[in-house]
Structures are given as C-alpha cells and as structure tokens.
C-alpha cells in the first residue's frame, strides 16, 4: 500500500460550499439585526398613555375609599354582654382551660374583690331581712 503523504498530494480543499449570494445576503441580514444604539424617542402618545394610567389609578382610588368606609363603618361592634354570653354558652373553652390561663397575678386580682371585712358582713347580715330565707335555702 502506498504511504499517504499530505505534502506529496495536491492541496485538498474542504469541499464546503455556500448557497448562492450567501455573503451578500448575510451582510444585509446582519445589518438589520444589529441592536440599534440610537437614543430612544419617546412619542407624545406614549407620554399621554402614562398620564392616562395615572388618571385611571386616581379614579379607582377615589371610588375605593367610600366603599371601604361603607363596609367598615357598618361592621357591628360587639357589646360586652353579647361577648360574655357567647363565651358562656357557645364557647368550647372549658372551666379547666380558663383556670389554666390564669396566672398568680390574675388570681390575686380576683381575691381583692372578696376581701371584705367581717364587720361589713355582720352589718349586712343584720340589716338583711331575708337572712332567714337564705339560711333556709
């Protein structure tokens, strides 16, 4: 077999070809594709659009405020009695839960209410006509 030597051979070309007018077309295509670096012109219309958006935002806001006020002023305020009744009759909180929630301070606060002097009790008992009734009950 004959040894192949590159330098002894006539120059071997790649054999790659291109479509007709490829390079002319490529130049034209490339020139169009280049990112334009010219300063951007902002048309009057575009500015008007911004103003329109701003105006729309103001109108929406203006309409929202009365609606907001309407809903919040009409929300019924719950009075203490209703709240107490609710807790007493509908709540799933048991007495034990309540006890657990109270700390030493709370208990001391409550005990103050019952700190009545003996004399006051005596007085109360002596002036109270229904005393017998209480005892009987």
């Amino acid at each position: 077999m004959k040894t192949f030597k590159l330098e002894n051979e006539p120059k071997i070309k790649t054999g790659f070809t291109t479509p007709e007018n490829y390079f002319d077309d490529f130049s034209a295509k490339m020139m169009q594709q280049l990112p334009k670096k010219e300063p951007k012109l902002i048309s009057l219309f575009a500015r008007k659009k911004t103003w329109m958006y701003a105006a729309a935002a103001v109108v929406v806001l203006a309409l929202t405020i009365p609606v907001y006020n309407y809903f919040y002023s009409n929300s019924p305020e719950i009075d203490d009695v209703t709240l107490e009744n609710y807790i007493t009759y509908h709540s799933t909180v048991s007495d034990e839960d309540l006890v657990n929630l109270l700390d030493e301070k709370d208990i001391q606060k409550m005990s103050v209410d019952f700190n009545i002097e003996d004399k006051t009790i005596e007085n109360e008992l002596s002036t109270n006509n229904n005393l017998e009734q209480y005892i009987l009950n």
Partner: protein
Amino acid sequence: MQEEKEFIQELLNPKTQNQAFEKLLKEYQKPLYNHIRNIVIDHDDADDVLQNTFVKVFQYLNRFKGESKLFSWMYRIATNEALTFLSQKAKKNGVSSETLQNKTIDNLKADVYFDGNEIQIKLQKAIVLLPEKQQLIFKMKYFEELKYEEISEILGTSVGALKASYHHAVKKIEAFVTTN
C-alpha cells in the same frame, strides 16, 4: 495598528457605526465563515454561529482593549462560539461531541453544500479522530492557511507548541488515510 484604532473608533461612534460595520462584515465574514464552518461542518450551523459571532463582536466592541489585533480577537470569539455551539448541540441530542461530529461527517455526502470526493471525506474522518486542539490547529494551518504567529495570537499557544501539534496531527492523519 493606528489605522485599526481609528477603525475601532468609527465602529464605536454612532454616526459612523453602520458604515464601519458594513466594512467589517465585508472584510471578515468570509474568513470567519470558513473558520466556523471548518469547526461545525454543517452550513446552517455555521450560519447561526457566524451571526452570533458578529452580534457578540458588536456588543463587546467597547470592551475590546486593543491588546491583540481586531482580527485575532474576532477569530477568538468565533472559535469559542463554534465550540460552545457544538457542545450544546451534542448535549441537546444526548450524545458526545465526538459522536455528533462523526455523524455529521457521515452525512457529508448527502449535504447539498458539500462538493467533495472520497479523499476529502476521508481527510475529515481523520481530523475528527484528533484531540480538539489539534483539530483546530490543523484546520487553521492547512485549510485556512493562517500563519503560525496568527494562530498563536488567536489560540494563545506558543508558535513552538503549535508547530509540534501540527506535526503530530499530520502524522496521525497520514497514518489514518494510509490504512483506511
């Protein structure tokens, strides 16, 4: 070099930019196309990569520091773009770069933009077997007929190392063509 600096200024100046870029395209599109085509083989792929290359050149021109020649800077961008393109294409097809290249060479006969004979196809098959760097060096020296100094500036490899690589590449190619 002074002339090149002025040309770069023209490319950066919005007033002269279009004209300068047209000149750049006229001068470099053919050699850069050939360089890219030799790497990616397929014409449509080369067209894509060439477009990306010029877009990048345009984008990064203001960062071009003039340390190397515009010519080698553009070749460097083209080489990187072409190699990245190949590895991305291989990844997309779920094959290795070598497999992809072999497949492309096998399809050459059917390629409408290839007009070559058996020896040309055999040479391409021999090149694909070389390591990537040797492939590049061989193609740039043998097909594109670039000078060692130019290749050195583009690839950042010393002239001595390039000569050695080219010599190895030629030996391997000759061995392949002789036995196949």
